[in-house]
Structures are given as C-alpha cells and as structure tokens.
C-alpha cells in the first residue's frame, strides 16, 4: 500500500483544521468487520472530532498490523497497464517502480484540494493555509486578524471554531449553505455500553437505508400531513443530532419542488431567528438552491458567530475578490489586512484524485481523457480498457456514510481478486457494454433529483479546476441496497458480466 502522508487516515490524517469533525454518528462510522474492534473501542463523542478519528484509524492500523504493508511518504504519480504481462507498473514520485497484477485505488472522494484562482496568492506575507493541509502544530488566533474564504462544510466548521478565540474574523462567502444543527455530545459510559450492545442492529439499519446512514427516509410525502404536523416533524429534527433532517425527512423533499421549497422555508426561518442582523441573515440564506440539494453542513453555533461584534461577512457575489495582496485581500470595494488567510475552498471531488495520477490502460489510453465527458464505470469499481484496476469508492459509487459503503466495496473487490487467483485468471476487465449499461443506469437513477440542477462538487463542478464547469452525474443515486443487490447478482453469476482471461 502506498500512502502520500506520513500516517494512516486519509481524510482524517490531512484535514486537521480547527473544528474538523464527523457529521455521521461515530458509532455508525467505525469499521464493522471485527467484533473484537467493536468491543474494545470506546467513542468519546457522538460526532467525533478529527483527533479522535485519527486515533481510531491508527488503532486499527496497529491492531491489524497493517503498517508493515504500508509505504508512507510514497506518492503514486503514475500507473501503467502492461498488456504483455497483464500487470501494472506503479511509479512513485521519487522514481521507485513496482509491478503488480492488480492495482486497487483507495484514493478517496474528497482528497484533491483546490485553491482559488485569485492572482497574488503567493504574495501574501502572513500565514496562509488550505484547510486540507492544516499544520500539525496548533495555530493561535488570539488577537489575530483572520480571513476564511469558503463556507462549505469545512468552512462552516472552521469559522465556528476560529470565532471562539479570534481577534477579528472576516468570512468571504460565495454560496451560503443550508446548514442544520449537529447537536453533538459526549458519550457516557452507559451510552457506550448500550451502543455496543446494539451494534448488530445499528449496522443492519445502516445497510437498509439509502445512504447507509442511521436515518431512514420517512415514507410520507410532505403534503400528506397537515401544516402543524409538518412543522412539528421538522422542529423535532432541527432539535435532534445528525443528518436526520436531510436523510430522515419526508420522501419527496429532494425531488418535489413544492416540498423542497417548504423545508427550505422552514430552515430559512430558523436562520432568521438565530442571526440578529436581518441583512446578514438574508446573506446567509441560500437563494440559488434548495435545502438538501447540496451537501448539508452540520453546525454547532455557526449562525450565532455572525452575532459577534468581531465577525464580518463579505458576500463575494456582490464584491468579488480581485486579488490576494501581500497584506491581505482586495475586493472590488475594499482592501482588508490580515495576519492569517484560511482557504476552505474545497476539493476537485470524486475524479480529482484520479486525474492527478497518470493512469494509462490498454494501448496507453489515459483515464483522465477517457473520463473527460464524465466517468464511465462498471459498478463504480471497474473500467473497460483498464484491466486489473479496481476502485474502492470510485466515481459512480454511492456516497453517504463512507465506511459503510467502503467496507462493502472493499469486500467485493477482495472477492473478485480471490476469484481470479483461485482460477488462475490473469486479466479481469469490465466490458465496454457493461460499463455503458452501468453508466446509463447511474444517469437514469439521478433523473428527477433536484440536486442534478445545482452546481456543486456532487455534480462535478469546481470553478477553480479547468474542465470542471459542466454538470456531470458523478455518483450512484439508486441507493446502497440496490447497489449491493446489483453487485451480488454479478458475483452470483460467476462474474460472467466481466471479461475474464
């Protein structure tokens, strides 16, 4: 296993910015494959912070003696398929080269950070950092003039934490988000005992839901209930921990415009109640997309931050950032001086980490070029013309509670490799017809979903990345139960849908 970082954890190794934290319940996020692991690990918080999660993943690596198989500080820059040997040559940044029968990509969905394309970024003389590359050493904000650019899920967490100690904070916002309360809390010994006793039921429930979250969609339609019932239902969700308000809501809020407008109006009213200055509240209410059609950030006092006298919100759709200067940020109407600039400017999502590796299949075909009009995969795991390359949580996989989905994906990939080894197969590949059929199915499964009408990383948009300005269907929206059913059908049929040799 090759890993760019000096430690395990991926997302939870890199993203050590202030406030980095789960939005999924910790006790649904851990690995489920080892009863012993479940028995011995106590989660401290219902939504663990980055340090706790990093400790957990290190514990996993130690417990299962994984480190001897991992080469750290080893960035893979290329992987080339060699038809004569039915193998891959994997090339590292430092020039090392290795041959392997199978190459398994576990490169993550949000692991290729992107900086804004403002001129002058390098000229800033203060401290600046993308949240993904946050230093391991603590950063002090006391008495400092700090800027945060970006108000996505990362920005929301960062802003809320930085605001606790900062001298003065200026938030540069392009797109406000429909944030909802996280309601995190410590897990008591008694709660942990109860969680442990119920792990079987917890994981079984996650397997049944669309996104592998603990929250199952309510079978009712929004307008099936009275206005009073609806308000009470949403009030309850707004007061409860986690993604319930997104994932456990009425079944039609993400497909029906009227239903979506009603839940959006409910959350907008909450923002107006929480933000004292009506003009600031309006800036924080999304106007170009409905609730849940982008990734919903969960927050812990985010809106109240804007009631602090030392916080300023700058809407860069009104006054765009023109450049980063040696002393701060220049917008179209003002020049701001800062000690620290934090870039919470997100990721080249889903395909970005693949694009950064020179992956070449049969006849040297470049994966990035093959996917230039959108990903084409079979089950989000295999790609035709790229034999023996298997993707764990690649494009066209279902998103959601990541470890739940990743465990299944890893198991399926392992099963396929075992099948190939047992039968002495040297070459496994998706067929072109199979990849086309799955890609068409992925596209069909997203039809009618309101998120497809919105620019976001989930529709492949990143204004800071060349060629990522057209909406694509990047993920499977048919739900994890259906996804697993399809994968299991392929297995049960002896993988005859693949090209095997």
């Amino acid at each position, binding site marked *: 296993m090759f890993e760019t970082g000096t430690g395990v954890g991926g997302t939870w190794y890199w993203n050590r910015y202030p406030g980095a934290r789960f939005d999924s319940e910790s006790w649904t996020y851990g690995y489920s494959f080892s009863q012993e692991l479940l028995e011995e690990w106590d989660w401290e918080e219902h939504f663990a912070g980055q340090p706790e999660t990093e400790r957990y993943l290190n514990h996993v690596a130690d417990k299962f003696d*994984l480190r001897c198989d991992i080469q750290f500080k080893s960035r893979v820059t290329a992987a080339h398929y060699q038809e004569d040997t039915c193998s*891959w040559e994997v090339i590292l940044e430092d020039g090392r080269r290795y041959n392997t*029968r199978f190459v398994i*990509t576990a490169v993550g969905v949000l692991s290729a950070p992107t900086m804004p394309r403002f001129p002058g970024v390098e000229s800033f003389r203060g401290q600046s950092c993308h949240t993904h590359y946050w230093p391991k050493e603590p950063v002090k904000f006391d008495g400092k003039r700090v800027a945060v650019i970006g108000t996505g899920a990362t920005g929301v967490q960062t802003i809320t934490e930085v605001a606790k100690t900062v001298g003065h904070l200026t938030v540069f916002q392009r797109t406000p988000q429909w944030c909802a309360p996280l309601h995190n809390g410590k897990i008591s010994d008694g709660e942990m005992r109860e969680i442990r006793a119920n792990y079987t039921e917890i994981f079984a429930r996650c397997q049944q839901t669309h996104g592998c979250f603990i929250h199952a969609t309510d079978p009712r339609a929004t307008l099936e209930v009275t206005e009073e019932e609806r308000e009470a239902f949403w009030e309850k969700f707004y007061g409860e921990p986690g993604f319930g308000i997104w994932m456990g809501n009425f079944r039609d809020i993400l497909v029906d415009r009227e239903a979506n407008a009603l839940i959006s109006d409910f959350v907008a009213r909450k923002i107006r109640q929480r933000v004292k200055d009506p003009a600031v509240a309006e800036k924080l209410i999304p106007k170009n997309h409905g609730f849940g059609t982008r990734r919903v950030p969960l927050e812990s006092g985010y809106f109240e931050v804007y009631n602090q006298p030392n916080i300023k919100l700058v809407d860069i759709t009104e006054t765009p950032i023109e450049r980063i200067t040696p002393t701060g940020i220049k917008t179209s109407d003002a020049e701001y001086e800062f000690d620290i600039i934090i870039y919470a400017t997100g990721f080249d999502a889903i395909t970005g980490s693949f694009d950064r590796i020179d992956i070449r299949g049969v006849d040297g075909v470049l994966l990035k070029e093959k996917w230039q009009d959108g990903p084409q995969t079979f089950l989000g795991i295999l790609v035709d013309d790229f034999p023996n390359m298997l993707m764990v949580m690649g494009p066209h996989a279902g998103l959601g509670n990541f470890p739940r989905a990743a465990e299944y994906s890893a198991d399926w990939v392992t099963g396929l490799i075992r099948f190939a080894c047992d039968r002495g197969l040297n070459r496994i590949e998706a067929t072109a017809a199979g990849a086309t059929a799955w890609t068409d199915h992925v596209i069909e499964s997203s039809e009618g979903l309101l998120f497809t009408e919105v620019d976001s990383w989930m529709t492949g948009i990143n204004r800071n990345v060349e060629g990522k300005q057209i909406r694509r269907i990047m993920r499977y929206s048919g739900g994890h139960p259906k996804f697993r059913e399809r994968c299991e059908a392929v297995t049960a049929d002896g993988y005859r849908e693949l090209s095997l040799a």
Partner: protein
Amino acid sequence: MVYSQAAAHQAWTDPSTDFDAIIIGAGVSGL
C-alpha cells in the same frame, strides 16, 4: 508473487518483486 505481510515488507526494496496487488491510499477505504 508475494503472499505474506512479512514477505511484502521485505519486497519493497527489491524492484524485481511482482506484487499480487498494490493499494493506493491508506485512508478509510484503503485500510
């Protein structure tokens, strides 16, 4: 071909080693 973890560990320094599988990434899905 490499079949054991110990052998895999030894093999990193030998460029002629043929691995069964190489995983890219030691994050949640890689582990």
